[in-house]
Every structure is written in structure tokens, then in C-alpha cells.
């Protein structure tokens, strides 16, 4: 889209400028533009681009976080009008995340949450040292699509297995998918405990989650935007 307004919206996200994004969102509302269009043709193009730039190492974490913040600010401004028009922007899916019982490492898990959320998922982060029953309760409460368990210690990897067993026991799987990650986690371990997926880093986690939702990514930008 070469419309200068959409172009400016895209740029405000890439620049990580929440004030500018809000200003542009307000401008769009004042012009009577469909807010969903503002998102899909403007802001979301920016966040997708930022995600890609981050993925190939051209953009850095502080930049990406600023882009995500700008995106959130824009959406927040547009939301009331979207609700009014019944054109609510749907999240790609709901993901419950947490670090396994007995484990306090959370840097990787937080990064996964950031990338998944920037990629269009709704995240429910339970924090660190989360018990299987807490995972199950949250998954039920929010009607989650995916449960993600991080574990950095060899000893707490057993907690990932416990979560999967608890999901099974509560009849949540196979509808709810279980994904795992963390430094010591291997594909072999993921297979052994019957996880639905595993990834080595946050970017792959986004692809994984999209695949599990049946939203296979296409290189086609417009199609991607429509999903975001």
C-alpha cells in the first residue's frame, strides 16, 4: 500500500514511536477510516517487518520491544471503534506460558512471550516455578490453544513431562497443544514425553505456534498481514 497514511503508520511501528502511532491512529479515526484497515494495511505491516528484521539480526531486542509497545498503543487507540463496528481483531490463538516447577530461569520464556505476542498471539504468562496444576487451571480458565513450558535445568525438565501428563489427565489434549523449550531440551526429549512441539529459540517458537494453529506461514506479506 502506498497510501502515505498507511506508510506513516508502518514507519511509526518500525521506529518504535508509540506517541506517533497513537497520533496516526487518532487521525485515521477522525477521517472515518475502518480501524481494522488501519491495522492490517498500516500498523501490522510495520510489526511484521520489525519481526522479520529481528529474525535476521538487523533489528535488536530493545528496538523490537519498542515496536511492540508502539503497536500496542495503536491498537489500544483503535480498539473502542473496532468494538463499536464489531470488527474485533482476533488473536491468532491463546497461549499459556510458564517455567517448570522448581525452576526460576525466565529470560528465554519472556523472550518467547514477547515474540509470540508481537506475532499476534494472546499470552498468559504464569511466571516461574509453575506447578502442573497451575498450568491446567489457567488453560481451562482462558480456554487456551497452546500451553508452553520452559525448563533450563536438567532436573526441572521432568516438570515439562508432568505438565503434559496433567493436561492429558484432565482431558485437555489433543485440543490443547503442549510445546516445550529451554537450553537442555532436545527434540528427542520432546518426542519422549509426547510434546506437540519444541523450539530452540523464540523466532522458531512463533513459527511452531502458527503451525500448530494450522496457520501455516506464507512468504506472501499481504496474506501474513491479514492474519496478524
Amino acid at each position, binding site marked *: 500500500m502506498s497510501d502515505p497514511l498507511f506508510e506513516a503508520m508502518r514507519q511509526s511501528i518500525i521506529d518504535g514511536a508509540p506517541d506517533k502511532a497513537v497520533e496516526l491512529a487518532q487521525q485515521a479515526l477522525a477521517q472515518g477510516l475502518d480501524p481494522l484497515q488501519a491495522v492490517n494495511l498500516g500498523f501490522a505491516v510495520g510489526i511484521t517487518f520489525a519481526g522479520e528484521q529481528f529474525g535476521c539480526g538487523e533489528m535488536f531486542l530493545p528496538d523490537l520491544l519498542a515496536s511492540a509497545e508502539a503497536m500496542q498503543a495503536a491498537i489500544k487507540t483503535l480498539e473502542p471503534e473496532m468494538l463499536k463496528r464489531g470488527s474485533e481483531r482476533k488473536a491468532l490463538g491463546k497461549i499459556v506460558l510458564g517455567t517448570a516447577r522448581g525452576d526460576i530461569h525466565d529470560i528465554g520464556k519472556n*523472550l518467547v512471550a514477547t515474540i509470540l505476542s508481537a506475532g499476534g498471539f494472546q499470552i498468559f504468562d504464569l511466571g516461574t516455578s509453575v506447578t502442573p496444576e497451575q498450568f*491446567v487451571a489457567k488453560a481451562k480458565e482462558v480456554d487456551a490453544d497452546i500451553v508452553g513450558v520452559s525448563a533450563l535445568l*536438567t*532436573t526441572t525438565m521432568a516438570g515439562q513431562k508432568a505438565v503434559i501428563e*496433567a493436561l492429558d489427565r*484432565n482431558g485437555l489434549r489433543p485440543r490443547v497443544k503442549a510445546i516445550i523449550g529451554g537450553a537442555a531440551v532436545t527434540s528427542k526429549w520432546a518426542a519422549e514425553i509426547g510434546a506437540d512441539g519444541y523450539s530452540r529459540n523464540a523466532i522458531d517458537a512463533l513459527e511452531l505456534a502458527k503451525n500448530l494453529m494450522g496457520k501455516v506461514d506464507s512468504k506472501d506479506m499481504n496474506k501474513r498481514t491479514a492474519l496478524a
Partner: protein
Amino acid sequence: MLDPETLEARPSETRDLVRIVQVTETLPQFAAQSTAVVCSDALLSNSLLYNDACNGKHAPGAIADLYRLLVVLQHSDKPVVTGSFSAAGLEGMIDLLAADSGSPDRLRQQPRAVFDVCPSPPLNWSEFGSHNLIDLARAGVPAEIVSMPLAGGTAPVTLAGSVTQHAAEVLAGITLHQLAAPGAPIVWGGAPAIFDMRTGGAPMGAVETAMLNMACAEVGKHLGLPTHGYLVATDSKLVDAQAGAESARSAMLGALAGINMISGAGMLESLARFSVEKLVIDAESIASAYRLARGIEIGSDKVPSETLATAMFAQIGLSGEFLKLKETRALFRQEQHLPSPVIDRSARGSEPASDVLTRARTRVDELVSKYRKPSLSEDVLRKFQAIVDREADRAAVEEAESGKNVGVAQATK
């Protein structure tokens, strides 16, 4: 573990830890032995404990910290650097050390091990960390406070700001520790690093990480405390040029800063991967760093010489036969670090020349064949057995109970 044959990472097992100990025991560069890796075979596949004393016993996952200490105590005579993975895990580990020393009092008088205890950045002490500090202080076993600010991620992006956070976290820990038992032994430790802005990782091989370690140690020295840092590690996943460059560089910097204890040798992938081959290469960097720290000296107590070496010039004249001088023979071992064949200084031979990983593999095999297992008395082994049995039962009960909470069948291992 980096498998030296396939060059792929695989979960570490008891045999890996034993091999690490065997190599460390035979290398004088290493003043202490680390319980370097977690043994996955003792945890997840429920295989037999490695040693004869505990033959037939399974090790539940919750005692992985105790298990690796057990393996090290059975194979090493050196001081030990270790740490527990939970609040409840520490007691068994201290009991094990007391059995090794003869009694809790003997352990207190001459502790064999130091325990790493981590605050949770920024500026937080978890219940687990706090418990460990207090219990160690009361047992009189040294604690090493390993504060790990990651500059820009879990700490201020400025290096100076991260040094400040490190000091605050360690001082808070020392306060807790000293209130529990005034005068209890403590080490001003740390694993400060920068935060990688692309991956969120902790780049242990970065020069800024080394700078942070140097600066944090300087604060500890100012306070008159023994210091510790995490260096000689790399972010590379293979034993390659990057691994060598980063590890050797930080070894030098650590030595120049006068840090008393340095952890990290043998480690790849920002501390997530271990290589025994890298350990023997790092040993050469460490020897070089020791050499550097010693500086340029003038002779020795036994063979004094003068700064300008005029006596040596006078004896040899213009003949150039310095090799013949008794001073040369008496002093060259002190003047030069004589590397093992891991370092290639060989005369030109057949092509292609060997690479460092190949030489390191050979060196590891040689050292392992030189290693002799220390013998522990049957009495000590029986005590070990009883402690491991007790802790395994405790862990099994805890595991069953937490299983009950989620309605997981009791049959889980």
C-alpha cells in the same frame, strides 16, 4: 556435552562427569574440581548409580545435585566447587561433605567445598537462594555469591550500572549470611555478563563480560574479600578459533585483575555445553595466564641473576651459545611455560598439520590413562550410601506428593 566424535551436543552422563574429573585431577592448572555437569542418566532413565557403594539404587531427579557431588567426591582429591538446585537439597550435600571430612566439625575447620549461591537479578534474593546462604553459614561451609547481572537485560545497560547492581546483590547476600552466623566464610563471587541484544543470551566470551568480572572483583578486593568470577568460557558451540580466542583472552584478563578463583574452563555455548577437549586446551591458556601474572622476574632464589644479564653475556661472549649456560638450564622452566603437545609448536612435519581438537582428544586419552582413583575407606562409603539412601527416599516422597496434587498416577518415577 559436546561429543568429540560427532561434534554434536548430547545430554551429559555420569561417564562424562567422571572423565572431566579424571582430566582435572591430573592437571596442576586446576586448583579445584567443579561438579561441572548434571548427569542425565542418573535422573531420567533411572539407571544404576555409577559407583559400587550405591549399586542398585536409583537416583530421583530431585537429588541430581547430591548425585554429582557424590561422583566427584569418589573420584577427586581436589577442593570442590559445587551448588545445590533446591533449598531442601543442601542438607544432604553438607552431610556428604561431613562424611568425607570425618565429621561436621572437621568440615567446618577445613571445608573441602565451596557452594555457588545465586541472587535473582535485579536486586532480589529468592527463597531458595536465601535458605542456601543461611544453611551454609550455619554449617560453616563457604558460600560463593554468584550474582549474574546481565547488562541491558536484567541489569542497567551501562557496565558501571551493572557493577553497582552486582555489588548491591552480593552485599545483601553477605548481610543475610553474616547475620545467620557472624564470621562464616564467604566469597565475593559473580558471573556478570552483558545481555545479547539479538538472542537474549549471556555472552560469556564478550570482552565486556570480562571487563565486568574484572570490575566486580575490584570492588570485592577493595572490601578485603576473596574474589571469584566466571571467565575462560566461550559462546561458540564447537572447539574452534572463537572458543580459543574468547577463553584465552578472558583467562588473561582475569589473571591481570588478580581474581582469586575463576570458574568456566571447558564451557561452550554460554555455559550450556561442556567439552573435555576444551578443558585441556583451556588448561594451556590458564598456564599462560599464570605466567603472565607472574611477570618478568630476575632469576630465582636458587639461581640469582641480574637485570641486565651481564654475567651471561660475559661468559658467552659473541659465540651465542646460551643453550650451554648453567643459568639457562636452571631457569628455563621458570622463565617459560612449557606447553603440552596440545599447543602446536612442533617442527614442520607431514602435511596437513594436525588441528587442535585432534591433539586435544589425544591429550585427554593420555591424561585419563594417567589418572588414579583415590581410595575412600569403607566406612566413608557406607556413610555416603546411607545419606544417598535417605535423600533418595525423601525425594521420592516429595515427588509422589507433588504428583498427587495434580492427580498424576503414583507410578511416576
